[in-house]
């Protein structure tokens, strides 16, 4: 059993570290993890699921705004991007946030193609992050089920 726990823990560590290295996550995510304690054991998971919900909603808004026949209301797009930027920076979704910054610039420049491209990229990014984090949470569950403690992985 211990061997299993140890193995899982190592797996977890490596996986999480890779997420940081690949730029999926940043310091803010670490901070979030620190807020998780016995009182709120699923805090990070909760927040991340909220985040992904927001992603869906905001991306939908942006798509709709960009999909307008006629003149596109870039300010509306920009508002959604701004919000997404805020959320992503708060959860530590580094890549998503980076894309939001670029997206915003395109909005301000009223660059339609640029915006559309960014939107597509964000869509891909957040989904990828979601998958990765899902795997990470699963590993955590397994460790806990195996009777071990989830190791602390900082950056």
């Amino acid at each position: 059993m211990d061997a299993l726990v140890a193995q899982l823990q190592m797996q977890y560590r490596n996986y999480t570290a890779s997420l940081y290295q690949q730029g999926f996550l940043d310091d803010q995510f670490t901070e979030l993890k620190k807020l998780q304690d016995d009182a709120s054991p699923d805090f990070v998971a909760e927040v991340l699921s909220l985040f992904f919900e927001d992603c869906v909603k905001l991306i939908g808004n942006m798509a709709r705004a960009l999909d307008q026949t006629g003149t596109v209301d870039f300010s509306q797009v920009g508002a959604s991007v701004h919000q997404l930027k805020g959320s992503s920076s708060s959860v530590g979704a580094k890549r998503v946030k980076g894309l939001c910054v670029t997206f915003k610039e395109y909005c301000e420049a009223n660059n339609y193609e640029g915006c559309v491209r960014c939107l597509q990229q964000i869509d891909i990014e957040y989904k990828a992050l979601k998958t990765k984090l899902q795997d990470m949470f699963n590993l955590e569950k397994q460790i806990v089920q195996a009777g071990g403690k989830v190791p602390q992985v900082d950056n």
Partner: protein
Amino acid sequence: MTVEQEFEAVDQFPVGMRVLAVDDDQTCLRILETLLHRCQYHVTTTDSAQTALELLRENKNKFDLVISDVDMPDMDGFKLLELVGLEMDLPVIMLSAHSDPKYVMKGVKHGACDYLLKPVRIEELKNIWQHVVRKSKFKKMKSIVTNVESTDNTDQNGVKANRKRKDQFEEVEEDDEERGNENDDPTAQKKPRVLWTRELHNKFLAAVDHLGVEKAQPKKILELMNVDKLTRENVASHLQKFRSALKKITNEANQQANMAAIDSHFMQMSSLKGLGGFHHQQRQIPLGSGQFHGGAAATMRHFPLGRLNSFGGVFPHVSSSLPRNHSDGGYILQGMPIPPLDDLHINNNNNNKAFPSFSSQQTSLMVAPNNQLVLQQPSYASLNPGGFSPHLEINKRLEDWSNTLLSTNIPQSDVHSKPDALEWNHFCNSDAAQAGFSGANNLGPMTDAQLLRSSSPSEGLFVGQQKLENGSMPSDAGSLDDIVNSMMPKEQSQADFFEGDWGLDGIIAHSELAYENLFLCFLCNLVNMRKSVLFRHNQLLLPLVLSFFFLLSCKKKPVSPLCNLCFKHDGILFVLPMNLLAVKEWSNL
């Protein structure tokens, strides 16, 4: 629970501080909530600004602090900020992903206490409670009725440090300790406060007078005052403020003097040096240095009722004010009684003087940042430039004001008293001082009730009468005239006062006749332009700052006031030039 109650009830503040978090982004809101919980605050969240407002309106005392996002769909965060500030006067912290300085600026302009950038870190949230304390302290100061020990004492700490008086060192140390204790616990500001009523203050003044401003010690003052439940600490802090205010007046006077170019001229009045203790420097004159009080003050105390006719040997004796102070029942205001005026009147004869220099220079000198110089003209008898006998009919009014000021204890922030214009007229019109005053006395209560209330620092205090009866305002008064005119329409309203600081510094000269006092002061100032001379009349301590601009002139030549009678009370500096009444509001004393 009010904020203060919260502070008292929760000893571990900032633990338990009640925060309202507003953000339409649920992710951020959730994170914020957790962060705040981690800081041990009590958190309420909402994703709508409207809901937030409703929550706040429902119970104003339910929250200590509001944190709000800037970009919200139903209401602009800045709008919410404004509304909260206006309606509930709670500290609001803005939160945004916008790092653009212009947003930060906007936040500041709309009154935000702080502006945080997303993602918010817990370190930043750990200190937000400071805004609550700051705001509550500010509110406290505004609504103070009696002495504000902790805040004032802090200031006086610094002031005292500069003092040269060594004989007060012991007293200072003691006071410092007390204040130190208070300051260590900023949240424990609620202590039973002493109400410095007129009566109490009179006793205090009498005691100080008796002991000597310089030498007065709280212990002895306390003994002399013989008031129940008054502690030495109360007296000590009151004494501090008293001295500090005196000092400030002297500083003002000093500043004025420094700008004069006529110093040397007055230095020639060496005969007055015999008075002793005049400081000729620009430095701050320590309150009642021994020289002053012991020497000059003692001399000046005894000022005769006769007229001064010469510069030399100009300080004959006057009766001591002390007995008067105590026995003058009229000064102890129970309601708004008016004490019998003791011949204190100064008739200003400088009808024809214009004060271009006065207005330009004096206003700049006299006007502190937040204050307005309000000018006002009493009516005057004919000018007597040659003989030095300024006549300024004011003092009955001044005393009334001071009486009223001291007798009513009301929040400081917005009050200045103003004499009833009617009564002022009365004074000014009558050349027979005594008659005028005693007549005016009877108007006292009514008049006092009509004292002006200025609700904002920007309103100057309009003192006394509007225009000279005989229209003797100099035609070329220039801006002074304009100022006077602009002040005309000021209305009267109830005066609110609280026991405030007395500016006391310098020699205390006493005279029954105000004009003689003026003259006396003028003479003193000739010797030392930086000194503000005080004279007391019936407990009204009137520092006299003599204008160094004086030019004896007559008949329509522009002239600065011969001297300015100044007294400060409760943060209001009344400056009454001999030929013009000017009042300046001196806030934040």
